[in-house]
């Protein structure tokens, strides 16, 4: 019986190597199969993003005229006038992601190790994934002075009127949308921590907090970090939550501002520059998160 894994592994190695043997034909077929995906991505993702960068160096909407004016002025405008927007975007994303980490980790741990109704939790947790629009809309209603949440908030001594259009509510709304991302990343990484390791640590005399600090956390932190950064990436793109739940200060986020610049004021140059800044922020976060969740995305 002991022999069984060995030939299977050998076989795999052989198949792997046989691929390199027929390298050329095989990789040609591979590229052929990838062609539709690559064409779509180039046409509708890479080219548009490159184009966005180009437009970000034109003045207002001159790009659509015959003689576009190339200038770095849009970025100067961002530095001069829109840095608060950049910081608001970062601040809200940071706060929402920290909220997710603080409240999401215990949730994930209990979910992974303690309870039996996981399917129910997983099923109900899809509601936030339907999108921030419905979440924000629903929360807005709950918080209305005479809404269904009012008695409960009164009971807790919270002034609902103050909560609506506040930064706290904006952050909560954002965090609610990204909460499942945090939870699922942590659950996935906890699944890689064999519970018997925890039991082993316990039998070796480690207290529960020691087990956590020395065994669970070191083994699961890449997933925790990946979850945090994934939430961060999503939260940077926040758009609708500040509209419905935030006040004017919270509405100074990049997505919202660039949409207004482009579609109300037709200042495509400035909007594109904001898009480039936002994209740079999001890709930095993604790049860092991919480094930490190495292998999670496969290949």
């Amino acid at each position, binding site marked *: *019986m002991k*022999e*069984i894994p*060995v*030939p*299977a592994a*050998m*076989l795999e190695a*052989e198949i792997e*190597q*046989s691929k*390199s*043997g*027929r390298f050329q034909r095989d990789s040609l077929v591979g590229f052929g199969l990838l062609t539709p995906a690559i064409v779509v991505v180039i046409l509708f993702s890479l080219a548009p993003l490159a184009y966005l960068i180009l437009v970000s160096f034109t003045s207002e909407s001159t790009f659509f005229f015959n003689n576009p004016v190339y200038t770095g002025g849009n970025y100067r405008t961002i530095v001069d006038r829109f840095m608060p927007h950049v910081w608001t975007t970062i601040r809200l994303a940071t706060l929402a992601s920290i909220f997710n980490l603080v409240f999401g980790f215990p949730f994930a741990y209990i979910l992974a190790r303690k309870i039996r109704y996981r399917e129910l939790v997983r099923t109900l947790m899809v509601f936030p994934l339907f999108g921030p629009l419905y979440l924000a809309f629903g929360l807005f209603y709950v918080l209305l002075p005479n809404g269904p949440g009012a008695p409960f908030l009164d009971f807790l001594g919270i002034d609902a009127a103050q909560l609506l259009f506040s930064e706290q509510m904006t952050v909560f709304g954002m965090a609610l949308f990204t909460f499942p991302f945090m939870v699922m990343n942590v659950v996935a990484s906890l699944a890689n921590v064999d519970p018997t390791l925890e039991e082993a640590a316990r039998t070796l005399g480690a207290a529960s907090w020691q087990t956590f600090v020395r065994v669970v956390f070191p083994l699961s932190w890449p997933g925790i970090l990946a979850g945090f950064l994934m939430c961060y990436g999503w939260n940077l793109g926040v758009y609708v939550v500040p509209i419905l739940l935030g006040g004017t200060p919270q509405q100074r986020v990049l997505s919202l501002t660039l949409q207004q610049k482009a579609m109300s004021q037709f200042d495509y140059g400035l909007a594109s520059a904001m898009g480039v800044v936002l994209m740079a922020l999001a890709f930095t976060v993604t790049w860092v998160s991919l480094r930490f969740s190495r292998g999670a995305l496969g290949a």
Partner: protein
Amino acid sequence: MSRVQLISVEKRYGQTLAVTDFSADIADGEFVTLLGPSGCGKTTTLRMVAGLVDPTSGTILFDDQVINGVPTNKRNIGLAFQSHALFPHMSVAKNIAFGLSMKRKPKREIASKVEEMLDMIEMTGFGDRMPGQLSGGQQQRVALARMLATDPRVLLFDEPLSALDRNLRDTLKYSILDLQRRTKKTAIYVTHDQSEAFAISDRIFVMNQGRVEQAGSQLDIYLRPATEFVANFVGDNNAIPGTIESIAVGEDGQRTATVSAGAFQLRGLALEPLSVGDRVLAFVRPENIEVVGGDIRDEADGLVTGTVEQIVFEGPTVRMTVDVAGTPLNVSASGVERLTLLDKGDKQVTLRFQDVSLVRQGAES
């Protein structure tokens, strides 16, 4: 029903040689086993016959027709996998019918063939079950039925029993042999389990590091190992280093060599072109060492004396380690008289060697 020939077949993966210089002529209806440790190239060889791996060089022929380059699905072979490889989303009947439906046989013919196959593997009425609902042995039997349903020219077995437990292995290996004998199909069977190989093969190819070490009948392999590897790999063996002192050629042309192994001498069959003065390893199996009763001391008759160092009672056999002039030898005694040996601890015994085979020392891999 096919003759299968492999001529100087070689398979390289980059710099690694998986199989080299493999030649075999397998007769119609013959049952051949490729035996060897994992990584010896036996599975690669089988996969080349199946067309799942392309040989780097060499020729493979079915009935004198070159089949290199013929895709697997056009070779009309049957392959039994290590894991049964039953399609998990199809019922037993659908699995058995799969090959026939690929050949676009009429529905009625397929249905009757499936019934026939289920009868043959004694699983009548199991057609609607899913593979997951069967026991390991039943799964492997269905896999055999699926493979035989298309009436393949050659049957290939890739360690089909290694995932099963021992009892099942013992019964199934005879079922496989029985099926092959009844269908009279050429079969190539890959295994690392020598008892399997001995039980069912007409001919065994012992492989190591991509090469055939020895090809022959069970008796050839067991009693007349051609190389040190074969002697060590197949069964237990005692290896006694020595030098050939003389060679006598018998009437039947057999060459019997007398080997001096330190303090004692022994005689063995010299298969290779060995000559006087060669350093050799003399192999003698524990069960081919006889403990001679009494206190006969006649070295000229090929008897040696040693001290019993350890005795283990294993039920049907008694295992002893006997120190003969500094060389520890494993001796395995069976039969009724084995019980009389149990009180021989620390005592002198006289041993007689039978079927000693000689292999040139260090001549091999």
